[in-house]
């Protein structure tokens, strides 16, 4: 997971400086090298800062001790953990099925078959069929389309706003920092589910409003984590060296602060994808999601609860599926977290 997140932040936000950005881990020496041409001679002009820097050798990403090597080593240790691999494979399956549900089922999620009503799970119908004879496995996969996309929208909103607020308050400090953190505090006072309900009340029902509501609800955690990381990273020697070398704040931010503070944010992102899925499922369970016949995971579970006595699988199997997804995400983020400690 980490491997995929790191290049994303650097790659999308500073494509031109990609090679320089990735070198950020290579400590202070890289800062002088990555600085714009005008700042390059600074190393000689300011012996106090430059002299100490030049004595260190540059470490490229692919060399021992470089960023990619470290990540690859992490990936190797994680790849031998069966639980972790299983979780990653399951999440990969769910994500692929969300974008191409047709790969795993040949049926139509909306075609009814009155003769096959309420069939119990079998090889023909993995999850059984519902009250109209629709194949539940197929409906579940097409439900992934809505739920996973909603979770990604929510996560995108939370990361973009949270990262922006966290970086702003971490870098600027002072009054602005205090103000932003008070706003986050206030949002903490309103439970996530209730804030989401208020937003859904105002925006109306459907997958996108639910996604926006949940995204705003889980945003404060990202703002806090980013702020804490930015505060930690911005006092590190190589950031100060880069500033002393003449790099502007935006440049330092993109090449040094963000790449080095995104680890905990990435772990939080994995964890909060699970949280977002739970909230999205809860909101659609309560009846605020997509309109029928489309069905999100929560809607499917909710629809089945009228048939609990005669056909418990209609509700319980989709519920287990959701739990498995969230559990896998929790396990992935926990394993990475323990590894980083």
């Amino acid at each position, binding site marked *: 997971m980490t491997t995929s997140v790191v290049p994303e932040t650097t790659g999308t936000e500073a494509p031109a400086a990609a090679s320089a950005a990735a070198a950020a881990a290579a400590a202070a020496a890289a800062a002088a090298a990555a600085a714009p041409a005008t700042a390059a001679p600074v190393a000689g002009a300011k012996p106090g800062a430059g002299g100490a820097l030049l004595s260190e050798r540059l470490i490229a990403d692919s060399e021992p001790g470089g960023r990619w090597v470290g990540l690859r080593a992490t990936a190797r240790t994680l790849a031998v953990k069966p639980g972790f691999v299983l979780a990653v494979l399951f999440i990969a399956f769910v994500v692929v099925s969300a974008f191409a549900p047709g790969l795993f089922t040949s049926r139509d999620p909306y075609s009814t078959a009155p003769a096959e009503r309420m069939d119990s799970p079998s090889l023909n119908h993995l999850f059984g069929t519902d009250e109209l004879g629709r194949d539940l496995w197929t409906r579940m996969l097409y439900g992934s389309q809505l739920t996973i996309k909603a979770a990604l929208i929510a996560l995108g909103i939370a990361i973009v706003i949270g990262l922006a607020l966290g970086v702003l308050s971490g870098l600027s400090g002072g009054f602005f920092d205090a103000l932003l953190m*008070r*706003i986050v*505090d*206030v*949002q*903490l*006072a*309103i*439970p*996530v*589910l*209730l*804030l989401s*309900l*208020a*937003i*859904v*009340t*105002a*925006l*109306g029902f459907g997958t996108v409003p639910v996604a926006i509501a949940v995204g705003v609800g889980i945003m404060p955690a990202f703002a*806090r984590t980013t702020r804490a990381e930015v505060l930690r990273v911005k006092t590190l020697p190589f950031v100060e060296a880069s500033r002393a070398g003449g790099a502007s704040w935006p440049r330092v931010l993109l090449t040094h602060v963000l790449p080095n503070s995104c680890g905990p944010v990435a772990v939080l992102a994995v964890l909060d994808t*699970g949280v977002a899925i*739970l909230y999205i*499922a*809860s909101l659609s*369970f*309560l*009846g*605020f999601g997509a309109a029928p016949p489309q069905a999100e995971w*929560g809607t499917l*579970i*909710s629809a089945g*609860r009228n048939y*609990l*006595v005669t056909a*418990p699988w209609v*509700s*319980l199997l989709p*519920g*287990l599926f*959701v*739990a498995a997804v*969230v*559990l896998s995400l*929790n*396990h992935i983020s*926990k394993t990475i977290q323990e590894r980083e400690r």
Partner: protein
Amino acid sequence: MTRYILGRFAQALGVLWAAYTVTFAVLYLLPSDPIALQLGAAGIETDKLTPAELHTAKARFGLDRPILEQYFSDLWGFLRGDLGESIAKQQSVASLIGDRLAPTLSLSLAAAVVALLAGTALAYLASYVRWRPARLVLTRLPSFGASFPQFFIALVLIQFLSFNLGLLPATGIRGWKSLVMPTITISILVASQLAAVLMRSFDDTLSQPYIVTARAKGLSRAAVQWHHGLRNALLPATTILGVLVGLTVTSSIIAETVFSRNGIGKLAQEAVLAQDVPVVLAIVTLAAAIFVVVNLVVDLLYPLLDPRIVQGQRKEVTI
């Protein structure tokens, strides 16, 4: 000391006011038509009305006033305990909430007590057990418990305890039996969150020098953890009490919907479904008020619980 207490009161009021304002802004300023929304909730379709009828309909609910005027009059109403009028139910919000307070209060209290006991017991056990497999299972239990959607837990409980075994009523609010399943539903999540925080707290506490001292004096591990570990480990966890209570309250929305309990949680679900803005505003503000009060009480009691800590400098923990 007086200054500290007064300051904390002012801060609590400030947070409550801000929470109210944020909710008001969300409900009234988001890009939707709040007037059509609210008149729709009252069963009035705006596009079928003549302008004159529309005007009377707006005036009926006070929606023809400028937004700031509505904000201040609503705020003034809240300060006096007047929570406005439900548009869908044509009834005062305060009486609606009052009618439904009892089931939610008993459920939340039961769930809070169970969650507190279960969460503490789990964390205590997890940090006491030395056998690695058991320890691994116990430490993973909180993230396991927090992974199941609450409504799924509720449905499984109904399936097994009501339909298969016939032990408990599936719905309703009569008698203590109806309280059992909703309480379990809510407390699994809340206890998981609490246990996760407590486990870290136990780890910190049990590596303190005074624990080593107590052990060196010859106390058994069990006695050390009970007499020296527990109370000290519980202290930092008090700071998340507000969040946990908030979680208990919001979980009741789902529990009451599944178990058809006519409480405030069910009211919230109905209000959102009917887009009944005043009711939603009142319930969100009420939840924020509960959070603020719990945090205020914890803050004021903290110096008494832990005299080492100078006022206002308690340790922050996050979930």
